[in-house]
Structure formats: C-alpha cells, structure tokens
C-alpha cells in the first residue's frame, strides 16, 4: 500500500468526453494540459468514454505502467459510475478507495452549455479540487458482517403477504407482524378488483391461507413492533403480541403497512348513507345494490390534490370507473355521472376500461377546482365549462372518491426503523429511480401503499420486488458495507461524553468502557457516513473516512488557490 507521503503520491487523471456531452461544451484540450500542471499528477488521459471497455482498460493499464497510486476520473455522476471506476481500480490492484470522481458533466458541461469559457474554467476548479482531495485519500477496507437468515414483514396486506410468500418459498424464515386481528389488509373491504374484476375476497382468502399454512412463516396478528435495534443482517425486534412480548433476531425488514382511505367528514355533506365513500360503495356492491337506486353521481379528488394533500392518490379514478361499470351491471337502467378534474387512468387495461365505460354510457363531466360541485338536497350542482352553465344532477347515491392516506403512525414506524417518510407521511425510498424498493438504511425495504398509493397489481409487483431485494443479503449470508463511515480517529481525545451518540440518526454510535475509560464506538455496519458526529465532536475525535477535515479543507484550499 502506498504510504500517504506527499512525494510518493502519483495521481492519474482521466478526463471523459462523454461523446459530445462534455466535449461539446468544454475545451477538453485545455482541461487536459491544465490537469497535467497540477501537483502530484503523474498521468493525464482524455477518453471518448472513460466508462467503455476501452476506457476502463486504459485506467487499468496506466495504474500498472505509470505506477499510479491515486486515480481521478472527471466525467459524470458518482451515483451511477463510481462503483464501476472503483472496481476497475481494484482489478488493477489499487485500493478502490484511492479513487476520486469529479463531476464535470451533470454539474458543469450540461449546465453551462452556452458558456464554454466559464464552464471550462469551472471544470478546472473542480478537477483541481478533486486532485487535491485525491492526494490525501487513504485506503479503506470493506466491512463484512453476518446475516441472520430471517425476515420480518410489517403489515399483512397483499403486498406484505406476497413478499412473505416469495421469501418463504425461497427457504427463508419469515415473521409477519399484522396490527389488526386478520391478515388481508384493505382487500378485505373490497368487492371486485379492477381492471380484471377478480374477486377481492377470493384473492385475499387464497393468499391468507397460503401464508398461514406455510411452514416457514410465523404470523403475529393483533401485534405490533415496539422496538428495533441493530443493523442490516443483525436486527432484533421487540414485538408485542396478544400472547406477550417477543424478541426476534432478524436479518432484514420489509415495510408493508399500506394506507388508509380518507373519511371525508364535512365535505359534500358526507353522512355515510346516501352520500358515501368509494370504500363504502364497495361494501354496498358486495351486498348487492337496492333496486330503488337509479341515479348515481361520483365526485373525484374529494380531499385530494388540494393544499393540504397536494398529491394524486392514483387509484381512486380506476376505482370510480370500475364501480361505475359494476353499478351498470347490477342496475342496468341506471345513470352514472362522474365529476372529475383529470382522469388518472394510466396503463393499457385501465385505459381500455375507461373507453369501455364511455361506450357503455357512463357520463363524465369535468369540473374546475375553483368552482367545485356542491350538494343541494338530493342533487349535485356543478359548473360545466363546456356548456358554460351549471348543471343539476339528481342522485340516489353519491359516491365520493377520497384518496389513500398514509397510516397515522407512519412517522413513528419510520422513527423505529430509522427510515424517512415524506411530507404526506408515505415512506421515502432510497432513490426514486435507482432504489425504488430500498430504504437508504441498509436491510430495510418497502412495498405497496405504504410507499405510495398503489393498486393490487403494483402492490404485488412491489412485494415481489422487495422480497427479491431482501433476499440478496439473506442468500449471501454476509454483507459488505461501504467503509466511508465514521471512525474514532483519536481515541485518546474522546471523553466518552455521548454528545454524538444522541445525535446519530442511525444509532450507529455507542459508549463502551475501555481501559482508558468511557469511549465512543462506531458500529460500522450501522453507520451511513452522514458526518453529523464529526461536525459535532468538540474533541475532534471522530472523522469520516474519505471526508476528513483535512480532505475537505484541501478541497476548499484548492478551490480558493
């Protein structure tokens, strides 16, 4: 391993053209010769695509031939490409953490397309800063930890049950914790499921039976999780069950707590008899509609897409169209009118169901949220912009399409698991595109309406997806964790005061007794490297690998120099 002595530092800088993504907007030749002038830079190369096989081979070749002990790639974003470049370094025998990435595309050429000169000079700044930091990088070793081959699924709706079956069928032990006294979730209250019109009760029963009979699955109904300790591979959960408290060791956790349906108290004179929610309409349809009902009106976006709940709940439009069709089946001569703002009917089958409903005479009237419909006795009055006047629609039954809401306690569940919820209380995935079913916290996954209102097909797909993600650490038996984490760099300085322990968002710090007294200890696998502790410790005992004060200062210094 190269010693971190400045004369021994030999940095290779690879500057990517990214086709014309970078080269089209910045002066690449100037960047190349500039990089050559920087301290410790022993080799500079420009590549058409550094991430192509050719580019990667050039990096590997140069590490060997030019005796490089640090590599800087100036290209796109570390989010997508850092793992690739790091592993190329490792293949050439260089510790992968002696690699630094500089983003001159997303953060430079793309945003300064019209400013070639200034863009080039900013790219120079960025490269100079990256090189300055690279010179101070230290090798790191990945952290390994064993995985308990058991999964806990919180929430026994269709998403959670699907995930449970998928994992159990692969041979892993699964614990399902369901708060209510039955498995099944929202499906238990539904009638037929659009767009296929499958029977909700049948699907629920079939799945509940498979889960309950599975030898690998333990179900705790009427139970809740009251505490979670540990980290990926080594979680331990406190579960309160009707038979008393239990403590169970786990490797991974899946959140499948679903959502609840808004009860529109105070809106459109809702009373639950003649004016009902779609959910209550489902129950009526299940029992069979009274033959006296002839005129039906539905109002979409009730309590949704407003200031309080700006999001679209996605499933209520499908539900309304489905129920309108079912009404027409049960009450052939009836009239159904749907008052909508925008019809959210994504997906081929849903679109077809929508077209079909129009062909069958379901009437759609657009309304303007500025001039919302109002209930007057047994009629809805709505301003129809196409006609330019108000319409009066008498009804025997008025169905209000209300959105799915996050569970009231989702915030608490989030705190328990150290995972975030968004402003509407839905759980926030690790990354919208790259990690849709993972949390940023390793070993915790999510699926179904807990994440965002989903229909059954999506909830099932996500349940399978989350199970598949969760099975990766389970099947490997051990996990390797990023070593870019907090370290107690100066144990003597630590006074064991615990200030940092209380602030760690991941519970990754603990105080233990040593021969030198009370000291802090970093639980490697639990730490995410956010750095709050290092910025807090007044003894400056803690630091973050690859983001040390010295390295950050060197970057700032290089920027200003």
């Amino acid at each position: 391993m190269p010693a971190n002595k400045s004369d021994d530092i030999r940095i290779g800088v690879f500057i990517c053209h990214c086709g014309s993504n970078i080269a089209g907007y910045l002066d690449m030749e100037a960047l190349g010769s500039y990089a050559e002038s920087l301290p410790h830079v022993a080799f500079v190369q420009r590549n058409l695509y550094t991430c192509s096989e050719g580019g990667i081979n050039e990096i590997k070749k140069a590490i060997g031939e030019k005796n490089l002990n640090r590599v800087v790639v100036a290209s796109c974003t570390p989010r997508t490409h850092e793992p690739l470049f790091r592993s190329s370094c490792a293949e050439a025998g260089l510790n992968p953490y002696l690699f630094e990435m500089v983003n001159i595309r997303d953060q430079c050429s793309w945003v300064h397309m019209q400013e070639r000169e200034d863009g080039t000079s900013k790219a120079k700044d960025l490269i100079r800063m990256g090189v300055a930091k690279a010179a101070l990088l230290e090798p790191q070793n990945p952290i390994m930890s064993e995985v308990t081959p058991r999964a806990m699924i919180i929430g026994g709706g269709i998403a959670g049950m699907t995930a449970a079956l998928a994992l159990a069928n692969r041979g892993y032990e699964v614990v399902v914790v369901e708060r209510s006294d039955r498995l099944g979730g929202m499906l238990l209250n539904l009638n037929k499921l659009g767009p296929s019109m499958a029977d909700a009760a049948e699907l629920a029963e079939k799945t509940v039976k498979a889960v309950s009979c599975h030898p690998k699955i333990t179900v705790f109904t009427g139970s809740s999780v009251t505490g979670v300790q540990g980290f990926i591979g080594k979680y331990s959960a406190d579960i309160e069950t009707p038979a008393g408290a239990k403590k169970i060791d786990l490797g991974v956790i899946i959140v499948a707590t679903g959502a609840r349906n808004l009860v529109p108290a105070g809106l459109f004179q809702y009373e639950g008899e003649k004016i009902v929610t779609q959910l209550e309409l489902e129950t009526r349809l299940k029992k069979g509609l009274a033959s006296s009902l002839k005129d039906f009106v539905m109002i979409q976006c009730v309590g949704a897409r407003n200031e309080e709940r700006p999001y679209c709940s996605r499933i209520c439009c499908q539900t309304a169209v489905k129920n309108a069709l079912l009404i027409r089946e049960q009450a052939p001569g009836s009239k159904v009118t749907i008052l909508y703002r925008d019809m959210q009917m994504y997906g081929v089958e849903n679109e077809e169901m929508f077209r079909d409903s129009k062909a069958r005479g379901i009437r759609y009237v657009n309304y303007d949220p500025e001039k919302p419909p109002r209930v007057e006795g047994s009629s809805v009055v709505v301003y129809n912009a196409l006609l330019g006047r108000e319409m009066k629609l008498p009804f025997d039954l008025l169905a209000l399409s209300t959105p799915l809401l996050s569970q009231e306690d989702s915030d608490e569940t989030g705190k328990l698991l150290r995972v975030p919820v968004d402003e509407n209380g839905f759980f926030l995935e690790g990354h919208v595109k790259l990690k849709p079913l993972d949390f940023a916290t390793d070993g915790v996954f999510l699926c179904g309406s807990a994440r965002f209102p989903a229909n059954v097909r999506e909830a099932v797909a996500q349940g399978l997806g989350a199970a598949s993600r969760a099975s990766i650490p389970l099947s490997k038996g051990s996990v390797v964790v990023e070593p870019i984490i907090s370290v107690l760099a100066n144990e003597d300085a630590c006074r064991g005061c615990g200030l940092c322990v209380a602030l760690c968002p991941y519970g990754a710090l603990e105080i233990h007794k040593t021969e030198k007294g009370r000291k802090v200890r970093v639980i490697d696998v639990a730490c995410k490297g956010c750095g709050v502790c290092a910025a807090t410790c007044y003894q400056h005992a803690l630091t973050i690998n690859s983001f040390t004060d010295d390295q950050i200062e060197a970057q700032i210094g290089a920027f200003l120099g």
Partner: protein
Amino acid sequence: MCTGRIDPALAAKAFRKGLDGMLVVGCYFGDCHYISGNYQAKAKLDMARKLFAHIGLNPERLAFRQCSSGEASVFVKIVGEFTEKIKELGPLGAGADRFEASKLTKKMDIAEAVLAGEKIRWVIGKRTPFLQTGNMYGEIFTEHEFNRAIDMIIVEETEVQEILAGLREGAKSVKDLAASLSMPVEKVFRHILALKRRGFVALKRIAGRSPLYTLVPQEV
C-alpha cells in the same frame, strides 16, 4: 456525506483563506436521506451566522438553503440569488463587513476557535434535547430562551478566545489585555480567573504591582 457533515469551524477557515461567500444547500426537512442531518446542519450554520455577525463578518456571506434534487429551477434561483448577494457585498472586508481586510486572519482565527470549541458545540449538540426533553434538571427551553443562551455564549466565548489570542503574543496583565481588547477590566479579570481554574492560563510573574498571565501549553 450529508450537509450535517459541515463543520462550522471549516466555514471560518474557508473565509480566512479568502472565501467571500459560502452556500450550503441541503434537502427539505423530513426529506433527508440521512434522516435528520439537515436539521443539524441548519442549527450549526445558524449559530455560525450569529457568531460571524457578532465578530463583524456580514452573516449573509454564509447561507443555508433547501431544495430537492428534482427542483432544478429552485436550485438555479437559490444559487443565482446568493451569487447576486455576494456580488453586492463585494470582497470580504471591503465595506460590507464591520472589519477591514487586514483584520481578517485575526478575526477568523477567533471565529474558528469559538466554533471548534467545546462550549458552543456542546450547546448546539444538545439543542434538540434542550428544546424537547429539557436539560439535566428537566427544564425545557423555548426556542427563544435557547437562542438567548446561544447569544450569550457567543459573546463570552469570543471574549475568551480574544484573551487567549492576546496572551499568545506574550504574557500580559489584565489591565493591558483590557486596554488592547477594549474590554472592561472586571470582565477580563473574570475570564482570566476562569481560564486559570480550567488550567489554560497561569500566573507568570508580578511586574510592578500587576500580575502577568501566560498561556499554559495544552496537550493535544
């Protein structure tokens, strides 16, 4: 790395090295992938701004703003506005601040020492518990009370660091220190006694009728 990693002492260092403005952009509260790191960042930077204002650096030079990774236009607006602001303030020490450029190093050394010091970091670290569950006596602070406490600590800690900086030039009497720092003699005396008790300062000798104090070298 999260905005929570930003050590306010680093900001002081950066200004000393010639930075004219520092903008920290984090995610929205409750939307942070590091859960609560951005709350920490805001608390620390708010406190650093107060300290900067106290020692004469225009606090607008340090800003904490929030936007999500999907909000390009918000980000552009934030950066644009901040750039305009810094242009308006001009280079550090050229008029928008309460000291001249020649004093920069001295002022920022003091700011860094305060920001890297135990007292300030302890109080900021305890901010959430103080506001939510109270101190060790169970007294819960209001935001207002907490801010007042911070203000007081900033004033005191700056004075302490100024005295230590003064003594770094050589042993001095309380009277001389008071004169050079334009601080009341009693105040300097009180700080000196406290520093003596904590082992940072010692009596060197008596010159004429006034005792001269000197720094005690600290182990690191």
